[in-house]
């Protein structure tokens, strides 16, 4: 309908001029929407990115089908005797069992994750890719491979030395950097350090003990059966299959994303109240104008369209700016995370779904918030407002 198009153009023209007339107020209102959309976009992007990336990283990293770890301290305390490995190897369906120490250690004033593992196994289980140098060789107890971000932060290169010390205190040992880690698995994650199992044990003063046993299966489909057998064999240890870990991690990430989303929703609700307030003020200021437009033949639908357009423009600008700022925020958080040396990187995922959803959300929330004041505007009676100045 051409008529609708013309009315729409008129409504947009009036709405943009009305916003232009009260620039500061409109800017504040738009800011309210921007804050909400920025929060939602950045949090969703981070949550979404973490979920996809952490998931794939985990499945790459845990080349093993099942992990056995001592309970407590998040499986990081090394109190499984190394000889347990021999019993595990007896369990039908088990192809190999690799002893590992996973622990947090201090290096250059901050904590990092250190994995102590037989160098040959590191390659096959963790799918390690190096950007420089090599993995430690058997018998090289004081060699280390460090992540590329850590290397940059500490300013070390291959053949330099770093000092690793237990977070529990103690003197620590000097290690020679033999390789720089680019990535673990197919993800962009470059976690802390790899050292030999013996070196890790002596650093923790836990000779003969490990924190985790990685169990490699003959056939992945036997995971449940093997897991069951292992649980019966070692009732006090925590035995979990890779799938269970993945779903657990996903659960946690889902909760985190949900909480973040709720926060975003609250800030957006505040923004919506701002829109409602602005449209109410606009209607109030333009009472005479509305009465006049109705007098010269404007119908309710015309008036409704004019004010809803104002809300829609606010929503549109807020949505665009919110999207841009939100993605910028993800970038800043990513940068921040890598400079303070967090043991993981946040992937910057620009998801078209999130961007489109944020645009629609911003537009819909603004229009809905503008509905009530706009509807009130349509109830203005020309006779009552036109008579006196």
């Amino acid at each position, binding site marked *: 309908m*051409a*008529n609708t198009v*013309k*009315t729409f*153009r*008129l409504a947009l*023209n*009036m709405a943009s*001029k*009305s916003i*232009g*007339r009260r620039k500061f107020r409109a800017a504040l209102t738009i800011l309210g929407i921007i804050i909400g959309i920025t929060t939602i976009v950045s949090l969703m992007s981070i949550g979404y990115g973490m979920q996809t990336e952490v998931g794939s990283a985990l499945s790459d990293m845990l080349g093993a089908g099942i992990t056995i770890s001592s309970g407590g301290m998040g499986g990081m305390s090394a109190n499984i005797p190394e000889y347990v490995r021999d019993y595990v190897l007896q369990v039908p369906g088990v192809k190999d069992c690799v002893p590992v120490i996973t622990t947090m250690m201090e290096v250059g004033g901050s904590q990092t994750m250190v994995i102590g593992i037989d160098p040959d196994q590191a390659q096959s289980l963790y799918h390690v890719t190096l950007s420089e140098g090599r993995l430690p060789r058997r018998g090289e107890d004081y060699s280390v491979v460090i992540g590329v971000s850590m290397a940059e932060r500490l300013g070390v290169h291959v053949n330099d030395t770093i000092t690793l010390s237990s977070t529990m205190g103690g003197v620590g040992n000097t290690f020679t950097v033999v390789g720089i880690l680019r990535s673990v698995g197919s993800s962009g994650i470059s976690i802390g350090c790899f050292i030999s199992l013996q070196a890790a044990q002596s650093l923790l003063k836990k000779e003969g003990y490990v924190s985790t046993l990685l169990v490699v299966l003959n056939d992945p489909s036997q995971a449940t059966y093997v897991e069951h057998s292992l649980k019966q064999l070692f009732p006090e240890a925590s035995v979990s299959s890779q799938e269970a870990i993945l779903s657990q991690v996903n659960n946690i990430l889902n909760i985190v994303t949900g909480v973040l989303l709720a926060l975003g929703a609250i800030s957006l609700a505040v923004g919506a109240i701002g829109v409602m307030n602005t449209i109410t003020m606009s209607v109030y200021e333009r009472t*005479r*104008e509305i*009465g*006049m*437009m*109705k*007098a*010269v*033949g*404007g*119908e*309710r639908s*015309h008036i409704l369209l004019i004010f809803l357009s104002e809300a829609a423009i606010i929503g549109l600008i807020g949505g665009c700016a919110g999207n841009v700022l939100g993605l910028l925020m993800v970038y800043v958080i990513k940068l921040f995370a890598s400079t303070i040396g967090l043991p993981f990187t946040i992937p910057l995922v620009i998801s078209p779904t999130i961007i489109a959803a944020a645009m629609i959300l911003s537009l819909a929330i603004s229009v809905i918030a503008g509905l009530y004041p706009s509807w009130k505007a349509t109830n203005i009676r*020309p*006779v009552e407002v*036109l*008579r006196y*100045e």
Partner: protein
Amino acid sequence: MSRAVELHNVSKVYVLGEGVKVEARRGVDLNVEKGELLSIMGPSGSGKSTLLNMIGGLDNPTSGRVIVDGIDITGMGEGELARFRRESVGFVFQFFNLVPILTALENVELPIIFEGKLSSGETRERASDLLRLVGLGERMNHRPSQMSGGEQQRVAIARALANDPSIVIADEPTGNVDRETGSKILRFIQHLNKTLGQTFILVTHDPTVSQASQRIVYMLDGRIILEPPKSVETPSKQALIEERRQLMLAELGWLRNSLIRLEESRDSMEIELYNQLRAGYASKLESLKQAIRGSQEVS
């Protein structure tokens, strides 16, 4: 051929608060012929504006029938009235009532867009033609704030003519401009009336406005009190002042009556409404008294 306006026994009762009724119009009959230029005069509160609003389809009468250009608008609903207003009526207001954020051209386009029959190009063309007709061809892209009162009122007249209405009704069209501009606007209305045959109904306090019209209708307390034929000779200045004074005195009487009625119904209405009305009446009374005193000094 149907008349431009026919009013049959039209009355309007305002319900103010609970049980308080104010009769603004009492059983009025009035006919306006096509091409006529009619003035309605009377003190404020006499029901002129109410009458005008009912003719223009802005207000519904409590009883009686309003027929404009052969169409009975008495029982029309809100949507139908809106369409009627934009197709058949042009409005000119005392305070111009232009949309401040729109240019002169856009203001004139407004009713044409609401009507929706012309294309964008035709709309623009029609609005430009009308602005040229009112002598504002050079000021089309100015906003109301950049124009004088007289110019704004001419934009309002162009807007009133936008959809080629059967009648143009103007409530105090010269009430908010200086004398000279007022008489220019008046001459312009006369000109449009003669050249286009456009029917005008004016409400005014200004005797010079009413003189310019073919017929004057006087109103007092919701009634049409006399319909004198247009006098041939121009009344003297003294007579004009005296006429004004009489009108003001009539208004004074109306105000006093209103106050008495208000006092009578004080117990049956909300105190806030009562206070508001009372304050309104009182301030009006005060300014009226001063105006009357002023006119006595002159005479």
